[in-house]
């Protein structure tokens, strides 16, 4: 147990900080979920990041990474968020598909997809859920039928994040038409610009369209685009979901930076601040620290050879509830300014907090609802019997 940074870690932090100070755009980029222009600006930022070899520091050097450990990844993320660098339009690729390909992909797939993922040249969407499936991924009905050297995809996907503007998608398809539930599913990569793909933006509560519905009609995909063998999709997808809910979906620095901003917002009220809100601000800061400490502990454990298990579900619950509470506290401090849109003249910083609050409301729902996560904790971590 040593909770001090090594000299090398300190030097690494300094290196990240210096680079970010020089490269992070002064003005925030427009959202990548609201316009093609914002999307492209973020894609350009990914290219800049990649030039600095900061795309994904844990990746091997051959794929554009630095082969660093998870502690350094955390330090990188801390400096990244502290510098208020743009959100990662590429997160489906670098955090979800990338690690999956490295574990389950062929050499050809890695060579074909990883470098362009790292540069942002190809931005990825995910295509898991379906209108009648929701959190029940095993209910997937979209199918992939083998036809010569191709798969022919058809079906209806929903909640495909980034899919409105992205280039490629990875999704679960039923390759065995006789199969039920989680058997007979496969993970297949497809070009979103293929004939037969229709993208319908979903208008989110906050007016953005970070998700799309995808209507797939006879979309032809080379058979080599399957990841792993036919029927292995569920297993691979669960490994990915573990990663998603686990370490990378929400890096702790995001909340530490938000809690710091909340503390400053509270401080600006001086003595007029309601002491109950003061206590909630302290709670927000404590939670942000608890989450960060927990992730550091998990990262250390993984580096020491441990595995990530059902505690990924505890992370999901914790960050999603913390995120809502943190932003709600900000809205309560803002009072009657809370409802104002960012471009309202009287909003000042209120609009950003409102955006963050609405965004946070999705947290307990996506990547498996918190109800599902609590079931997972109860059954897999505590050993309670299945319903």
């Amino acid at each position, binding site marked *: 147990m040593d909770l001090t940074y090594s000299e090398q870690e300190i030097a690494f932090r300094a290196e990240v900080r210096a680079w970010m100070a020089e490269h992070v755009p002064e003005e925030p980029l427009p959202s990548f979920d609201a316009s093609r222009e914002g999307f492209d600006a973020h894609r350009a930022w990914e290219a800049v990041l990649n030039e600095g070899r900061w795309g994904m520091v844990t990746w091997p050097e051959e794929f554009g990474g630095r082969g660093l450990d998870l502690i350094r990844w955390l330090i990188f993320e801390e400096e990244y968020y502290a510098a208020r660098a743009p959100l990662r339009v590429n997160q489906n690729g670098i955090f979800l598909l990338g690690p999956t390909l490295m574990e389950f992909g062929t050499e050809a797939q890695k060579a074909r997809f990883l470098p362009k993922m790292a540069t942002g040249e190809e931005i990825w969407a995910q295509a898991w859920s379906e209108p*009648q499936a929701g959190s029940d991924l095993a*209910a997937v009905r979209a199918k992939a039928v083998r036809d010569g050297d191709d798969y022919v995809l058809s079906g209806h996907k929903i909640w495909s994040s980034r899919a409105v503007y992205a280039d490629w998608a990875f999704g679960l398809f039923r390759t065995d038409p006789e199969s039920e539930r989680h058997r007979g599913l496969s993970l297949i990569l497809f070009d979103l610009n293929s004939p037969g793909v229709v993208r319908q933006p979903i208008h989110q*509560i906050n007016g953005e369209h970070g998700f799309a519905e995808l209507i797939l009609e006879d979309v032809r995909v080379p058979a080599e685009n399957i990841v792993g063998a036919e029927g292995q999709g569920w297993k691979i997808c669960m490994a990915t979901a573990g990663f998603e809910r686990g370490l990378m979906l929400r890096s702790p620095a995001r909340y530490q930076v938000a809690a710091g901003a909340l503390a400053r917002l509270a401080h600006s009220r001086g003595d007029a601040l309601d002491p109950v809100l003061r206590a909630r601000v302290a709670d927000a800061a404590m939670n942000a620290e608890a989450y960060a400490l927990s992730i550091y502990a998990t990262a250390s454990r993984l580096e020491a050879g441990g595995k990530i298990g059902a505690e990924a579900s505890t992370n999901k619950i914790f960050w999603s509830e913390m995120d809502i509470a943190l932003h709600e506290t900000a809205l309560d401090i803002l009072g*009657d300014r*809370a409802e104002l849109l960012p471009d*309202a003249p009287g909003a000042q910083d209120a609009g950003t907090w*409102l955006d963050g609050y*609405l965004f946070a*409301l999705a947290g307990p*729902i996506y990547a498996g609802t918190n109800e599902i996560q609590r079931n997972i904790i109860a059954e897999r971590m505590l050993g309670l019997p299945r319903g």
Partner: protein
Amino acid sequence: MEFVFTEEQQMMAEMAQGFLADRCTTADLRKLTDSGDTFDADRWAGLVDLGLLGALVPESAGGLGLGRADVIQIATACGAALLPEPLVDVMGVVLPALNDLGQDALVADVLKGAAHVALVHPDAQLVQDAPRGTHILVMTPEAVTLAGAEEVTLTAQPSIDPARALSSVSMDGGAIIAQDAEAFAQVARSGAAGALFAAAQLLGIAQKAIDISVAFACERQQFGKPIGSYQAIKHHLASAQVAVEFARPVLHAAAAPAATAARIAHAKIACGRAADLATRSAVQVHGGMGYTQETDVHLYLKRALALRRIWGSETDHRNRYAARLETSAFGPDTLFAKEA
């Protein structure tokens, strides 16, 4: 002691509910806001015709001469219907204030739909629908000022709720119609009315958010059965319903003639919390659909978010309630005590 609404009160409420069911569906609301508007002149004319604007104005001044308890359920229905036009504020706050302040001619104009008065109050500084106003009434604890539309400068302050067309107001002129103690008292009276009727709307939103979630949870299948058969979903909605059940009687008691400021504060807090719990549970029960604009959930969520924080925040109202608790006896026999 009779803590039930009279048949007349019930009939009034049903009349308003019927009107809103016909003329103010969420489809109507979406059509209106999609066209960039927040005010349906036909619907407003219908409300004017029903006489609801003047419900709290004495009959001698052209109103219905009713009390708050007579119309509290109407305000709840307006909340549930997400009525975009400012009936609740005009009926509950603006016209009673103008009447208090002796503005009989203006009251008469508003009652017949010929004038529209927007109100700026310390607890509701951004005004709804001001650009349509012929007059602006500005209250501070020092003075109440009435200005014509041409005597003020409006700045649009867009809200996350597309049906709330808010503006901030700066005064370039106007006439002072009350000062000092009279202004101070009017601010308190109007503030209490504003909080009470905001609470009523919040209660309506809360129940409606539960109702649409129940309907959704009965339909939507997951893992082979309706999601409403899962205990977690049941308990989310049951907890929200408990919050509604114990906010409702507080609201109704707060509409009584002798209700204290502390009781109104309590109603605002309780209805606000119920609406918050219910709308957020609604998002959760609707899952991904709750996070989109395709279902109606977001409309209730956004209205609740706004109403909870105007006409006094939870902090303000808690301080009011706590102050009374610390300076007066508290016990069973103080439950229906009159204002000190």
